[in-house]
């Protein structure tokens, strides 16, 4: 009965816990594969920058429309995409590299966002935007997250082949098809969309966590793109489930509990994974027995 009370009852008794669990599942479905490609393309830090870039858009929408999920999501999406575009343009027309230019824009965005929310809102509002509240996810938010997850999976299925080629051999893709920028931009749009989906639940500062940590952890267990993506989804969902239970049972904030659980998967994988982990490097299994 103890176990039932700790693990099952919260979801049976409370609608907000069920909605939070479904939100985690939908977030995992979208963020897992997108995170996999982010890691494979060595763009993890750029994902972080994009997550922060969402803030001023969400903050301006908050000023105009109050705590409206749709307005803040749209504002965040526009701001994220604008920063990505501006950073891309600056890196192409000046000597600055894309990572440095993106970092510059996201720091400006973050400061601007905090300033805007502080001017009109309370510190509670600011905390809400920065750290999210998955337990307050309502039906509208669930629909948004589910829609973004569906769009993400369909789009990834459509652009899977050029995306793989662009990661593996970008010059071949450009020489063969003349394209490359298009697929890159569609992918970046998916990253921003999934960060927007995550920010209501986890906040702009931690939305990337559910995308990055499971994908990075999966690298220590799986060796193909499809298995990396599947494992990322599974670990992201497990992080959501375990994180919610920890949050409920120990009265801890839900967002950090979920991301810390994902962090646990990440650290555990570094230590114990079957591919290039510390265990396989320093304690390899003997190939031959006497």
């Amino acid at each position, binding site marked *: 009965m103890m176990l039932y009370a700790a693990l099952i009852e919260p979801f049976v008794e409370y609608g907000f816990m069920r909605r939070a669990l479904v939100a985690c599942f939908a977030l995992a479905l979208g963020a897992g594969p997108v995170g996999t490609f982010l890691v494979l393309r060595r763009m993890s830090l750029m994902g972080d920058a994009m997550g922060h870039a969402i803030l001023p858009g969400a903050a301006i929408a908050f000023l105009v429309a109050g705590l409206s999920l749709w307005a803040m999501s749209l504002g965040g999406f526009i701001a994220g995409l604008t920063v990505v575009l501006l950073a891309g343009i600056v890196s192409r027309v000046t000597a600055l590299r894309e990572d440095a230019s993106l970092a510059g824009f996201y720091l400006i965005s973050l400061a601007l966002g905090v300033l805007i929310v502080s001017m009109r809102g309370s510190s509670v509002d600011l905390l809400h935007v920065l750290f999210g509240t998955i337990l307050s996810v309502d039906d509208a938010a669930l629909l948004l997250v589910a829609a973004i997850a569906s769009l993400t999976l369909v789009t990834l299925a459509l652009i899977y082949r050029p995306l793989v080629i662009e990661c*593996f051999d970008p010059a071949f893709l450009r020489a063969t*098809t003349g394209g490359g920028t298009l697929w890159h931009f569609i992918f970046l749009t998916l990253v921003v969309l999934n960060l927007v989906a995550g920010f209501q639940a986890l906040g702009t500062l931690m939305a990337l966590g559910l995308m990055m940590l499971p994908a990075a952890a999966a690298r220590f267990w799986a060796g193909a*793109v499809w298995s990396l993506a599947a494992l990322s989804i599974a670990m992201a969902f497990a992080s959501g489930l375990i994180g919610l239970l920890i949050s409920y049972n120990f009265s801890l904030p839900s967002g950090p509990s979920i991301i810390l659980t994902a962090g646990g998967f990440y650290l555990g994988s570094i230590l114990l994974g079957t591919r290039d982990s510390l265990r396989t490097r320093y304690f390899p299994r003997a190939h031959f027995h006497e």
Partner: protein
Amino acid sequence: MNALALPVPAIELEDLTVAYDREPAVHHLTGSFAPGSLTAIVGPNGAGKSTLLKTIAGLIAPDEGVVRMNGLTRRGVAYLPQLAEIDRSFPIDVIDAVSLGLWAEIGLFATITGGLTARAEAALAAVGLGGFENRQVGSLSAGQFQRVLFARLMLQDASVILLDEPFAAIDERTAAELMDLVDRWHGEGRTVIAVLHDIERVRAAFPDVLLLAREPIAWGPAGDVLTPENLRRARYISDGWSDAA
């Protein structure tokens, strides 16, 4: 690969100037690659060789001048990047990497059917990697990986083949076997242009040579181009550019 119907269009360069990373890399280059020719582009480090090849491949736009492909489409040009430009740690199987050469036939969505897989397997066998289909590219040596890329080139079946340092960082035996493939492509009437460092290999195997030092030093038959005087001049001009940069 089947022999191609001749004539294959030549590539013409007219007063071509190209910058790389915002630095001028190739200056006022004019000339043409004859149909079915086998040309080596040589020159000191930083001479603009790879930049020129990328420009012909359509990866870099010229700042001035034009590259005339004379009726060739992208499909007719196959490009081999330098090994360093490819992410060899990417989790992709050898057979999938080779099958990318079928892009013109499969495009975005078509599935790779039995016939196409058989062609990819045959290309792999032709470069001596039969049985490696399900290995990941990350587990291959540099030489084996270059063989995979040559198998991909075979599947592209292009009339113009551009090779950027195809024999760099690979063992001599692999280099010799891949050079045999290049000779075969040349014999089939394809136009092959390769950026190379090894002057002795160029003397032995390439009928035509373009000696570049950001500006053209000489372009023509290997014997006429690779003279001590020309090579010295190329080094001298290239050092001058490096000092000025």
